[in-house]
């Protein structure tokens, strides 16, 4: 398998687009290496803007470029982009309605042992709360490429979070069902009892593995790859809530204001069903590499399957 990080998939898609569209602009805050954007900066220097370590400047300059017709893509670690430049995202991008795509790289706990300063486990909560800001967490490289293509075709603001590490493929080059702002539904098993797993970003792969484990136990397990956290695909959630005995959400985020909160708000109001929530704790995250940290907090396929089986009784 050719594993690459999703950030690299973004660079490749943007380079294809930049070839024929000189309005595609990439901006970095001394982050081109960590964003996998060095090839873009090397190949399209006239379409690249370096602002130095200044995330507020990064986002405001992007908004100014976008206001004048550019398709401005900002790349910076999600921890800084979603917090240091939050007000610029709120005012210069979302409120002023500029065509800026904010790409938060190495999101969640990607930076592992580097500590809380480098984690972004509040970004979904923060960004979804801004009117006119969409929030996407694609799962694998194929979906990331489709998402970039869709985002290049519109002129609205968006925040995209991708991880630092290479991720397992969920889809293939020839089979990556994608409809913008619709969750991708994956069904496993054919039992009479249905359980639902709703996940985004790097949590989709373990959710799929969990669904396979549950299918082996005789259940019908459905995964919703909710890459579109905002606008949340309410219809897919409600359809699944009508079928499933229980739902489980999984996210690399604080337990507040993320995917679990958003899904629960929809089901509680319109189709009450029990929703188990797996997330990172409301606490300083333990030191370690991503897989170690995920294992420690139970963000694994095995724990997802176990939680659902235990809840079913």
């Amino acid at each position, binding site marked *: 398998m050719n594993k690459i990080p999703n950030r690299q998939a973004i660079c490749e898609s943007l380079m294809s687009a930049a070839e024929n569209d*000189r309005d595609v*602009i990439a901006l970095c805050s001394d982050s081109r290496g960590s964003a996998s954007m060095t090839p873009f900066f090397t190949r399209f220097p*006239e*379409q690249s*803007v370096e*602002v*130095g370590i*200044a995330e*507020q*400047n990064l986002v*405001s*300059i*992007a*908004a*100014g*470029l*976008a*206001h*004048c*017709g*550019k398709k*401005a893509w900002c790349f910076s670690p999600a921890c800084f982009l979603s917090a240091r430049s939050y*007000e*610029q995202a709120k*005012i*210069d991008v979302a*409120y*002023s*309605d500029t065509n800026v795509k904010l790409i938060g790289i190495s999101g969640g706990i990607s930076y592992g042992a580097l500590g809380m300063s480098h984690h972004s486990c509040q970004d979904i909560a923060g960004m979804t709360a801004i009117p006119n800001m969409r929030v996407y967490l694609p799962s694998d490289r194929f979906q990331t490429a489709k998402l970039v293509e869709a985002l290049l075709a519109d002129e609205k603001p968006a925040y995209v979070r991708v991880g630092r590490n290479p991720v397992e493929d969920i889809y293939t080059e020839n089979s990556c069902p994608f409809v913008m702002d619709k969750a991708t539904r994956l069904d496993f098993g054919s039992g009479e009892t249905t359980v639902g797993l709703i996940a985004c970003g790097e949590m989709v792969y373990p959710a799929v593995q969990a669904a396979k484990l549950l299918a082996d136990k005789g259940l019908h397990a459905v995964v919703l790859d909710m890459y579109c956290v905002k606008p949340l695909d309410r219809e897919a959630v409600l359809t699944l809530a009508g079928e499933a005995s229980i739902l489980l959400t999984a996210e690399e985020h604080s337990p507040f204001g993320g995917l679990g909160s958003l899904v629960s708000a929809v089901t509680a109001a319109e189709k009450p069903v029990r929703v188990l929530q797996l997330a990172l704790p409301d606490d300083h995250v333990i030191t370690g590499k991503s897989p170690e940290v995920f294992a420690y907090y139970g963000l694994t396929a095995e724990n997802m399957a176990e939680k659902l089986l235990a809840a079913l009784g």
Partner: protein
Amino acid sequence: MNVKSTAFDVRRTALEMIMKSGGGHIGGDFSVADILTVLYFREMNISPENKDDPDRDYFVLSKGHSVEAYYAVLAEKGFLDREEVINTFSQFGSELIGHPNNALPGIEMNSGSLGHGLPVCVGMALAARMDGRPSRVYTVMGDGELAEGSVWEGFMAGGHYRLGNLCAVVDFNGLQISGTTEEVMNHENLAAQVESFGWQVLTVNGHDCDALQEAFALARKTEDKPTCIIARTVKGYGGGAFMENKAGWHHKLPSAEEYEQIAANLEKHKKEAMENE
């Protein structure tokens, strides 16, 4: 037309807006009025006719709280209707919000939180350069605003990219809500500070419309670096001695008696400006 006298009309419209809506940033409106009027009537290539032309000049009011003066000058320029501006400013459901709203014709970007205008203008100036467009890009900041770190990120990038098509004006009235800028966070060496970021700096009397116009002309001629115009102004200028240079008039609703005095003073100054033409 006589810009000095138009600037007094701008102040009068701002005064009426503030009386009708129940308060506003009157001190800064009066200090910035000459700068805005010179920009719109003597310097910038912006009008209701070319507002969507990519080659137009671009303006961002970074000190968004001087919105009354901004809407007033946009009304003078024909972007907005003066009566509507006075009657609906800050009223329920109005698009004439208490800080600039780019849903209105002629307004490029929303502002209100300080320290955003200059970095946004850096992006606009870069875009014009990338496309080989003749557009020039202008922002007006307050002096209190200069304490925001993002302003200096903007100065840094403007100097780094040698944006000769970028011009920042500082409405330097020396007062902010808590007192003098000197006491709150001083910028005694502002010219040297901005120069050290690679900018041309020009200091002028911000109520001398000819001097402002000359400074803008010099900025236009300077192609290898951006220009910062430090416009020395008086907060509350033209309203009368009781309100000029007083931090307490940063945001205020004048009493009925004060209103009469301010209106009379503005009328008197306007007359003088017309006589001196």
